[in-house]
Structure formats: C-alpha cells, structure tokens
C-alpha cells in the first residue's frame, strides 16, 4: 500500500492551546503549531522549559484537548488516548510495590491482553536494556537510570506504533543520560517506531533525532525545522565532530534569537543556513 505510506503518520495542523481561555488570565501555551511526521521518523521537539512543548506532546497523545486546530494520527483525528500510542514521562512512574518485570507488564494488564504471551517479550526487553538480573527487584532497589530503562521497556512492551517521550532523561545525571541516549538509539534500530521526543538539551536532540523542531516561548510555536544529516547507527563519538557542533551552535542561536525578538514575530518561514 504505497499510497498510504505517503501520508504523514502524525499531522498537527494549526494547533493552539489556551489555558483559562476567555478570562483575563488566559495563557497561550501553544500557538498555531503545524508540522507533520512521516511513519518511522524520530523527531525531537527542542525548546526552553515552559515553552509549551510538553503540552504539545500531551495533545498529540490525546491526554490534553486542543483549544484550536486539529491533530491526526494514522489518518484519524485525536479525541482521546489510544493504545497505539506509548508515552514516557519525565519520571519513571513505576509502581513501587511491583517488581521491574511486573511494572513492564503493567500495560498488558490494563489492556487485558494475555500475560503469558507477553512475559517472554518483557523479559527480552529487560535483557535488551541490561536489566535481566534485576527483573524481580522493586523500583526502590534500582537507580534512577535503571528505573527509566524499565519505563522504556514498559512503553515498548505492548508494541505501540507511536512513541511519545516527554523529557524522559532530564532527571538523570549527565553520564547516565548519555548512556540512556545510546541505549535508546540502539533500541530504535531494532523497534523502529515513529517517535516524538521532547527535550531542552540541544545535544540530546541532535544526537537522537532525524529531525529537530525548535519551539520557543514567545511565540509558543515552532520556529525551525531542521533535518539532521547523520546516518544511523550513530556512534557516541559523532558528538565530537565539527558538523555536530555546528548544528548545535546553529540551534542554540535560533533559540536565543527568539528570546530577543518581540512576541508575535513569526520566523518559521525564514530558512537559515548552517553557521560555518
């Protein structure tokens, strides 16, 4: 079905989110954002904290209503959460009384799928992220990085088509974070899904994504859509390369630019060249 393949998997059209709409305290968290993601692409949404990127992600996941505009996933408009979408949050949100394995199987229980069918898959995922010896440990016996690894397994176990990640590694220390990025890329090779990854780390975005969308606070919209040219698999060492750092420098400039500019200027049309 090559015709279906051409259609973008996620389509966000003129989406806005206004909190306390109609009151004097109305806050425009997301203002008229449009983009689309083809099937299988890894897209990072990069922006400073408080720019509305998490709100945007939650709207794509059906956990927040849009105030205006339209979000389509896999051809149908989002009206609420779907089981074809997996979400990873900032904290691991593991259940403290369940073992790592049971936490991974939690979605299966909720979705009332047969546990026995998925137990092997869950074990394999844990093995894949290096936690096979910790399957029976409770969350409080695991480190922060390990807990997020369990959360990744939990998001993958029921095989969602679209994976939404809301700054999943922001609470981790720098070294663990690098490890997690490498692990995520590694998993990505194996379980290719469409992914939206929200982050405020420029290097993380460039390292992980096929495409980086830069979102700013004022206006709370997307001001840059940059394709990352690196081939996969990507070794950790590309972070040292000149091209990588040039891209990072350019993205940083775009973010800073929008800080100095007044509210309401829309720079999305401007197509800047990379800084040499």
């Amino acid at each position, binding site marked *: 079905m090559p015709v279906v393949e051409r259609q973008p998997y996620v389509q966000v059209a003129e989406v806005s989110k206004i909190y306390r709409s109609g009151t004097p305290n109305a806050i425009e968290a997301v203002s008229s954002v449009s983009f689309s993601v083809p099937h299988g692409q890894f897209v990072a949404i990069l922006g400073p904290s408080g720019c509305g990127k998490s709100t945007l992600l939650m709207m794509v996941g059906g956990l927040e209503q849009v105030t205006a505009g339209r979000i389509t996933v896999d051809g149908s408009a989002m009206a609420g*959460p779907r089981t074809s979408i997996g979400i990873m949050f900032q904290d691991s*949100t593991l259940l*403290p009384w369940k073992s790592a394995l049971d936490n991974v199987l939690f*979605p299966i229980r909720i*979705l009332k799928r047969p546990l026995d069918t998925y137990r092997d898959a869950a074990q394999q995922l844990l093995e894949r992220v290096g936690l096979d010896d910790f399957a029976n440990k409770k969350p409080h016996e695991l480190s922060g990085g390990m807990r997020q690894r369990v959360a990744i397994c939990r998001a993958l176990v029921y095989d969602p088509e679209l994976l939404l990640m809301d700054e999943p590694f922001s609470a981790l220390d720098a070294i663990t974070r690098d490890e997690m990025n490498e692990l995520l890329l590694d998993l990505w090779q194996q379980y290719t899904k469409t992914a939206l990854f929200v982050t405020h780390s420029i290097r993380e975005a460039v390292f992980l994504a096929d495409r980086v969308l830069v979102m700013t606070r004022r206006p709370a919209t997307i001001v840059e859509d940059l394709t990352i040219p690196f081939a996969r698999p990507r070794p950790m060492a590309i972070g040292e390369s000149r091209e990588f750092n040039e891209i990072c420098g350019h993205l940083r400039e775009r973010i800073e630019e929008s800080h100095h500019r007044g509210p309401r200027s829309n720079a999305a049309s401007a197509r800047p060249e990379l800084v040499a």
Partner: protein
Amino acid sequence: MTVETHAAPRLVAARTRIGSRAIRGPDLRQLRPVILPLATAGMVLLLWQLVVTAMRIRAVILPPPVEIAAELWRNLPILLHHAIPTTLDSLMAFSLATALGVGLAVAITYSPLLRDTLYPNLVVFQLIPKVALAPLFVVWLGISSESRVAFATFISFFPVVISAAVGFSNTEASTLRLCRSLTASEWQSFVMVRFPFALPAIFSGMKIAMTMAIIGVIIGEFISAKAGLGYYILYASSRMETGVIFAALFVLCVIGVSLFGAVALAEQFLRRSYGRR
C-alpha cells in the same frame, strides 16, 4: 510513598552496620529492640513492687504487681467471660467503621460535590470531643449492645475516612496519567493504582480506628451495660476491689494489643500480596 523509598536504603544501611558488628559481639545486638523495651517494662514492675512494699501502700490504693497477678489468676474465668462481649463489640464497630470510612472516602475522592460539601465538616467533626456524645446513644438506642457498637463505630469512623481520603488523593498524578494514556477504566486505575497507593494511609487510619473502637465500647459499657470488661471494672470499683480492676485492665491490654497486631498483620499480608501480583 516517597518517604518510604528514601528511608529504605538508609534502613538497609543501618541493618548492614548492625550485621557487621554482630560478627564481633554475638546476636545480643540484633535482639536489642526486643530486649530493651521488655527489660524496661520488667524494671518498672519491679520498682512498683518495691515501692508499694517499702512504703506500705494499701492494696486498695495501689496493689503490687504480684497481687494483681494473683487476682488475675483467681478471676480469670469471670474476666474471660466479660472479655467476650467487649471483644466482639469492638470488632463489630471496627469493621463497620472501616467499611463505612473507606466507602465514604472513595465517594469523596470521585465526587467533587461530595468532597466540597462533606470533607470540611468531617475535619471539623474530627476535632469535637465525641466521647461526650456517648449518653446520647443511650437515649437513641437504649442500653443494648447495638447502642455501644453504634457509638464505638461513630468515634472510630472518622480517622478511617480522613486518612483514606488523604491516601486516595495522594496517588501520584503522573501514574494516573499513565493509566489514562493506556486507556484504563476508572475501575482499573482504582484497583491497580489508587487503592494500593492508599493502602498505607488506610491502614494507619484502621489502626487508630481499632484502638478507638475499644475505647468506644468500654465507655459504652461504663454508661450502661450488664456485661463486658467496662461493666466489670465499674462493678469491681464499687466494691473497692482495686486488684480486680487492674487484672481487668491487663486483660483489656491483651485484647487491645492482639487486635492491633491483627490489623498490622493484615496490612503486611495485603501489601505483600499486592507486591506479588
């Protein structure tokens, strides 16, 4: 929950420290938490015995422990006979209080209207010295066992509602969001997330309720009863049998500790069974 997760590693650390020292000194250190309170209680009893004997305090005022033990032995059949209605009424009141309390807490959690109308009143009611209302229950329900159970339920029900409501509302918002993203039903989120998250709070309310239920029943028996340990204590005091009063108090202690222990055991069992699922 967070407190517990933070405390856990420290606890482990403390245990290993004790463990490493135990290599030098034998098991005595590990038994410390048991030996220390028991020894203290024993010392107090011994001191009591010595003071009463040395100062020639009359047994009507304060009988020595040895005499209380003798009274306990002598009156054991009648004390046990009176312990039965007290225990049964307390258990009944406790069960009713737990069922009503958790039920109302669930209603408060899921209905904002109920929460806004009831919760502030419940908190205020918690502050009223409800013991003073005991005579009213006699007016309303007479001197039967139902009257005492109703009163004991009434005073032990508040801690359960309050702590269960707090437990339910303290469930991590992010975990509930995860449930929502998985299209979980309200019932699923309640059974799999909210309820187990609230278990520690519910049980701390239940433990208070257990002691309150016994207090309620005893007060009821003080006011009006033909049986029960409260009734028997009053009866013994009218005959100036101080030793018997103390013996009855001892039996009450045993009942209180066993019922409290049963609740604690139930908690451990339930939390462990949740861990296994």
